[in-house]
C-alpha cells in the first residue's frame, strides 16, 4: 500500500522535473502558476479544512510575502549577497509575523465573525498600499529583477519553474508532515470540538493563533514565489478576488482531503490558462463549474475520487461502466449545448456584430469550424434541445447509479454523500 503510494509520488516527481523542458514557454509559465496556486491553496486549507477557520482575507499574507521578497530582491540588485533561489524565505518570514499578529485578533472569534475579521484585516493593506510609496511603491507597485546567482542567471521561465517546483514540493511536504504531528492532530481537534480542547488543558487561542501563523507563513512563501516569477507586485495583489480565488480552488478541489486543494488549484489554473485564450466568457464557465460542484459534489473533485477509491472493492465496476458512460454522454451533451449557446451569444452581442446588424447585415457566425445563421431559430433551438436531452439522460441515469452504489448495503451511501474528513 505505502509502496504503491511511494511509487506514484516518485512518478509524479519525475514527470514534474523531466517534462517541462520539452514544453513551450506558455506551458512552463502556466505550470509555474499552477505550482504557486497549489502551495497557496494547501496553505490556506491548513486553516480552512484542518483548522476549521474560513478566512476571507488570505490575499493579505500572499501580498505581504510578495512585497517582502521584492524588497529583498531590490537589496540583492543593490549588491546584497543572497542566493536568488532562497528569496522566498523572506516571504515566509513576513507572512509568519503578519499572520501571528492578525491571527491573534481574528481567532478571538469563530465562524462568520472570524471570516469578517480576516476580511477587514485584508482590506487594510489593500487600502493602504496605493498611498504608501515607500513600502508598497504606490499605485504602480514595486519591481525588481532576478539577479544571477550560484552560476545560474534566473532569466528563463524554466529556471523559475524549477525554483517554484522545489519550494512547492518542500512546503507541501512540510505541511503534510505537520498533519502527522501531535500539533497537527490538535489542529483537527480545534475544528471538531474546540471546547473539548480547552477542557483538556490546551490554550485554544494560542494554538489557533499558531495555526493561523503557519498558514500565513506558507501563504507568504507562495506570494514570494509569485514575486520572484513576475518580478513585480502592486496593491492589486491584496484585492478581495485573490482571497476569493483561493477559496474557490480549495472548494472545487475538496477541502476535506490534504491533496484536494492541489487538485483544485491545478484544474482551475489550467482551466483559466486554456479557456481565457479561447473565450471571453471563461469566468462564466468557471462560475458554472463551481456552482455544479457545490450542488452535486460538495466534497470537491478529490472527495469524489476518494469515495470511489474507498469503495473500490465493493463497487460492481462491470455493471457501473455502462451507466457511467451514459452519464458521461449526458454530461457532454448538456455541456456542448450550453457552450454553443454561450459562444453564439458572445458573438451576436459583440459590439462589432451589433454594429453590422444595426445596418441590416446579419452575417453568419463562424463557430466550431462551421457557419451558423443567427436569425434562424434552429440555430438556437437545436443546441437547447441537445442541452435538454443531456439533462434528461443525466436525470434518468442517476437512479441506476445510486442503486449500484448502494448495492443492498444500507450504510454504503455514506461514503459517497458525506464529506470525507481527515488528512489524506
Amino acid at each position, binding site marked *: 500500500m505505502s509502496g504503491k503510494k511511494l511509487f506514484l509520488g516518485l512518478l509524479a516527481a519525475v514527470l514534474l522535473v523531466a517534462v517541462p523542458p*520539452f514544453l513551450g*514557454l506558455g506551458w512552463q*509559465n502556466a505550470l509555474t502558476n499552477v505550482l504557486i496556486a497549489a502551495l497557496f491553496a494547501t496553505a490556506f486549507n491548513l486553516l480552512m479544512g484542518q483548522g476549521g477557520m474560513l478566512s476571507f482575507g488570505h490575499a493579505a499574507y500572499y501580498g505581504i510575502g510578495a512585497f517582502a521578497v521584492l524588497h529583498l530582491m531590490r537589496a540583492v540588485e543593490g549588491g546584497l549577497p543572497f542566493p536568488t533561489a532562497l528569496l522566498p524565505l523572506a516571504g515566509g518570514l513576513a507572512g509568519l509575523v503578519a499572520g501571528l499578529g492578525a491571527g491573534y485578533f481574528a481567532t478571538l472569534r469563530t465562524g462568520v465573525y472570524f471570516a469578517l475579521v480576516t476580511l477587514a484585516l485584508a482590506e487594510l493593506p489593500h487600502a493602504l498600499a496605493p498611498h504608501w510609496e515607500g513600502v508598497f511603491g504606490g*499605485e504602480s507597485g514595486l*519591481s525588481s529583477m532576478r539577479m544571477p546567482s550560484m552560476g545560474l542567471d534566473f532569466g528563463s521561465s524554466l529556471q523559475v519553474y524549477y525554483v517554484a517546483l522545489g519550494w512547492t514540493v518542500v512546503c507541501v511536504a512540510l505541511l503534510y508532515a505537520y498533519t502527522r504531528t501531535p500539533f497537527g492532530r490538535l489542529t483537527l481537534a480545534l475544528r471538531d470540538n474546540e471546547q473539548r480542547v480547552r477542557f483538556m488543558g490546551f490554550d485554544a487561542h494560542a494554538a489557533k493563533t499558531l495555526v493561523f501563523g503557519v498558514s500565513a507563513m506558507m501563504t507568504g512563501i507562495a506570494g514570494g514565489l509569485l514575486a520572484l516569477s*513576475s518580478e*513585480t507586485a*502592486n496593491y492589486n*495583489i491584496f484585492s478581495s478576488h485573490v482571497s476569493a480565488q483561493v477559496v474557490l480552488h480549495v472548494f472545487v478541489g475538496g477541502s476535506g482531503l490534504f491533496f484536494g486543494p492541489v487538485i483544485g488549484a491545478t484544474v482551475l489554473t489550467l482551466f483559466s490558462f486554456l479557456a481565457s485564450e479561447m473565450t*471571453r466568457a471563461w469566468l462564466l464557465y468557471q462560475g458554472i463549474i463551481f456552482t455544479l460542484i457545490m450542488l452535486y459534489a460538495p466534497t470537491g473533485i478529490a472527495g469524489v475520487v476518494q469515495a470511489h477509491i474507498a469503495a473500490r472493492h465493493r463497487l460492481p465496476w462491470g455493471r457501473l461502466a455502462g451507466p457511467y458512460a451514459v452519464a458521461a454522454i449526458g454530461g457532454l451533451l448538456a455541456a456542448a449545448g450550453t457552450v454553443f449557446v454561450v459562444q453564439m451569444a458572445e458573438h451576436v452581442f459583440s459590439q462589432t456584430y451589433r454594429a453590422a446588424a444595426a445596418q441590416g447585415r446579419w452575417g453568419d457566425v463562424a463557430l466550431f469550424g462551421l457557419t451558423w445563421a443567427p436569425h434562424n431559430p434552429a440555430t438556437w433551438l437545436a443546441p437547447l434541445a441537445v442541452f435538454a436531452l443531456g439533462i434528461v439522460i443525466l436525470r434518468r441515469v442517476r437512479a441506476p447509479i445510486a442503486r449500484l452504489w448502494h448495492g443492498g448495503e444500507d450504510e454504503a451511501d455514506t461514503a459517497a454523500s458525506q464529506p470525507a474528513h481527515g488528512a489524506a
Partner: protein
Amino acid sequence: MKFAHAAAAIALTVPMAAAPLAGAKAEALRIAIIESLSGGQTSTGRPNVLGASYVIDKLNAAGGFNGDKIVVTEYDNGGNTAGASAKFKQALADGVHIVIQGSSSAIAGQLSEDVRKHNLRNKGKEVLYLNVGAEAMELTGEKCHFHAFRFTTTAPMRVGALVRVMKEAGTLGGRVYSINQNYSWGQDMEAAIKGNAAAGRYEVVETVLHEVNRIQDFAPFVAKIQAAKADTVITGNWSNDLLLLMKAAGASGLKARFATAFLDQPGNIGNAGDVALGHYVAHTYNAEATDGVMAEDYKKVTGHYPAYVEPNTINGVKMLAEALKAVDFKGGAIDVDKLALALENVTLTTDTGVQSIRKEDHQAYLPVVVSRVEAGVKYPVDGTNLGFRPVKVLPSDQTIYPVQASCKMTRPN
C-alpha cells in the same frame, strides 16, 4: 538502460526537429493586445481593442505586412497586474513583436517593465510596447525605455490646454479649485494645476485628493468648493467620481465651471444631463472638429463614433502603420529595433492635427481639443441633445511639456 537511451534520443531529436521549421517561413508580425476584457474593468479595456482592431483590419485588408497578414491576439489580463504579467509571458510564448495596452497605469507600468526586462535578457528578440491610454507621468519618466512608446496625453498636456483656452475665452476666472483622486494620476493632475497657476494667472484656492471610486456622496466636497468661492474646478476624475461630483454640484446649485479630462467617457453626459452644460473637457479628438469621415467610417464598423480613449488608440496604431510602411524586412525576420527607430520618425496628420514622437522619452506630441458641453451640436452623445462643441484645437507644439529629468533612455547602438 534501454529506456534511458530512448529518452535521451527523444530529448535530442524533438528540439532539433522543431528548429528548422521555425526558421524557414516568412515571419508574420504578431501584435498582442493585453487588456481588461472580463470583469468590472471590461468597459475600459474593450474600446482599446476596438480602436486597434479597426486600424489593423484595414492594414490586413491592404495585404498586411512582411508578406503576411498581421496576427492580432487579444489577451485578457483580468484587470490586474499579475494577470497582465502572465498574459505577457503567454504572448512571448506565442512569438509576439508588439504589445498594445492602455486602460490602466498600474498595468501599463507592469507591462512596460516586463518588456524592458525581456529585452535586456533576450537580445535580438526584442518586443515593443505601445501605451495607448495610460497617463501616469512616470511611464515616460523613471520607467521610460527605448522600447516603450506613449500615444496619449498626460496631466500637464490636458491641464495646460484647458487653462490656455479657458483663459482666452474668459471663462477660467482667478480662483481655481483642484479636486482629484488620490493616486498617481490625481497627484499628477494636482501638480499640473499648481504648475499652470502662473501662466493662467489664477490662484489655486484649495486642493483635495480623495479616495478612488469609493465616495458615494460628494456634497461635503461641493460645500467646500462653494465656501472657497471657486470660479473653476479642475479635476482629473473619471467614471463615478466625476459623475457623482457633477451631480452633487448640480444639486447644490454650484456656479463654478468644471474643467475635466474625462467628461467624454460614454454615459457621463447621459447621466449628468443639463448639469453638464457649459463644462469643459480637454481631449485628443472631437468629431465636431473634423470633417467626420473617420467618425462615420468607425461607426460603420463598431456602431458608435470614436470617443474617450478610442481616438488615441486609433491614431497610435496608425502611427505604427506608418512606421511599418517605412521599413522593409523583405519577408525575413522582423527587427523590432529598426521598427522602433522608424516609429520615432513618423509624422502623422490626423483629423485634428499633426502628431509625432519625442525621441528623448517616446512621449507623443499630440494636438489637444478643448471642448464645451452645449446643446445643438452635430454629434450629440448618449441619446441626449447635448454634445461637445470644440472651442479650440491646440496644435501639438503648444501642448507639449518638457522631458522629465528622471527619464534616462538607453538607445540601441
